[in-house]
């Protein structure tokens, strides 16, 4: 595999992001965007303290985000640790909601390949529909691209029918060039989705990083005809941000990507903000978090 080093004009990227952020999406189109954002959401809980109760609550929220308004769609997936997959799957079995599991020694990825593969197989066995893996950033940064590539390829194999999302952890990659290179690498190695971050490292998803990743997806599509999905995760807390991301996807990849099959938000607090904005659009009243469930 030949990996091109594609130079990125960071200032140009920022200017493009600024232009995208200045689009005004209001009223009907805002409602549409909110609907889409909610349907694209991977409701996530990745805490060491995640109890069965918390996962149960999250799954119920995924199915019925807000019962007081009709026509509120359910989210795309629930994202949990491997040992909570079984429970989540059980609760969600009658719904169309997928269960995604982080695996491969999440969030650092600092373990042996065997353990990572076992981690993936365990999650798939428990019923995960989607696997969110982390790349070995240490290997990537020291130039050992072949190792990173092989890891992704083998994990893809271990996933069997499950979709593979590859987390680049862009906050640790250092530059946009690295982000672009890691995106290309992950897609070549068989990723179904590329994902910005674990949510455990700051900065998590930022607009310039996502823009570069979307361009990588576009170029990969031109080159191979394959459509790869995108998942920004971490740090997206407001509907406004979410809508800006949607605008960016539409402008760079086109309408085809505006579906939960090809674009996801990894978030936990975003759902409540989307719901609050939704109710605001419907009732004209600004909302309070007091009236929305915590998880």
């Amino acid at each position, binding site marked *: 595999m030949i990996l091109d080093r594609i130079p990125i004009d960071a200032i140009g990227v920022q200017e493009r992001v600024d232009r995208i952020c200045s689009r005004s999406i209001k009223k009907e189109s805002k409602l549409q965007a909110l609907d889409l954002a909610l349907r694209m959401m991977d409701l996530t809980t990745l805490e060491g303290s995640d109890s069965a109760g918390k996962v149960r609550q999250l799954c119920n929220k995924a199915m019925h985000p807000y019962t007081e308004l009709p026509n509120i769609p359910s989210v795309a997936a629930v994202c949990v640790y491997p040992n909570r997959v079984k429970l989540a799957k059980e609760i969600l079995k009658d719904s169309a909601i997928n269960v995604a599991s982080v695996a491969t020694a999440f969030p650092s990825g600092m373990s042996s390949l065997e353990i990572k593969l076992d981690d993936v197989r365990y999650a798939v066995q428990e019923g995960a529909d989607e696997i969110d893996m982390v790349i070995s950033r240490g290997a990537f940064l020291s130039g050992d691209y072949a190792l990173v590539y092989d890891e992704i390829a083998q994990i893809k194999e271990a996933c069997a029918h499950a979709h593979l999302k590859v987390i680049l952890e862009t906050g640790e990659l250092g530059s946009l060039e690295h982000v672009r290179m890691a995106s290309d690498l992950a897609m070549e190695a068989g990723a179904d989705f590329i994902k910005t971050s674990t949510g455990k490292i700051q900065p998590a998803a930022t607009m310039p990083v996502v823009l570069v990743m979307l361009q990588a997806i576009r170029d990969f599509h031109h080159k191979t005809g394959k459509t790869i999905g995108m998942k920004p995760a971490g740090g997206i807390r407001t509907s406004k941000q979410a809508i800006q991301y949607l605008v960016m996807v539409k402008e760079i990849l086109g309408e085809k990507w505006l579906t939960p099959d090809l674009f996801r938000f990894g978030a936990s607090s975003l759902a409540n903000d989307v719901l609050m904005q939704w109710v605001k659009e419907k009732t004209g*009243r600004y*909302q309070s*978090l*007091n009236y929305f469930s915590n998880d």
Partner: protein
Amino acid sequence: MSREQELLIIPKTYKNYVGGAFPRTESGRYYKLNSVDGKHLANVCLSTRKDIRNAVQVARKAQASWQNRTAYNQGQIIYRIAEILSGRRHQFEAELESLGYSKEVAQLELESAIDLIVYFAGWTDKVQQVFGAVNPVASHHFNFSRQEAVGVVGMLAPEAPALLGALAMLLPNMVAGNSSIIIASEKLALPLCTFAEVLETSDVPAGVVNILTGKKEELVGHFVSHMDVDALIADPTLSFELRKELEVGSTSNLKRLHFWATGCTVDEIHSTGKSVIENMAKSAKDPYRILDVQEVKTTWHPISE
């Protein structure tokens, strides 16, 4: 033109005070404030719905940490406001005079305002002592009640007195542990705009006090319908239509609505200003207003027989 005249006038556009910063109104609109003799004094923001939204957002963020500060620290901060205001009192007096106050009444209002701040600074560590309670119960429990903040409170400052009227609303809320959003007097907005500069330099954490200017008719509706506003304070001199809008709208999320007599008309300031301010200064020192904007939490703690 003499040198003094050349130097004196630098008209200024006053901005809102939100989250410890001075943002322009999102709408970009403003209105002109004129002195009593018709001179253009300043431009002042005509705030809108979104300014209220932004203010509520920062007020909500700031509220918990303000409530959780020690009473001692809250007292220090409120006292600091008095210190800074005292140092700038001549500027305030001049502003009041330009708005038609007599020199005597302007001085009286400043004196009363500073006195009121010091008075409420003293209340921070006394609220629990005076209004908290240990309750007798018929079981083996140690049962006690303490006062807690209600949350984010909106205030419609009376048209006059320009400074004292707003402070009489703000101070009990600060002591209660609430964060505040004040809509300033429309005709006499200037002193409260300048007061924002006092707050900004006196250790009040960002977002605990927010000041907006504009037309109350345009803003009241957005205030009452906002689900994240927990209480509203207004003055009985408010027009009947606006009072009605407050009463009806506040039912949305069962906001507490209180009418505190902290104001008068601008004409009254001109005619009987001295006695009005004197009365205001007295009635503003009502500690029960703190309770209006608090909730009571009662705890049952089991004890052995």
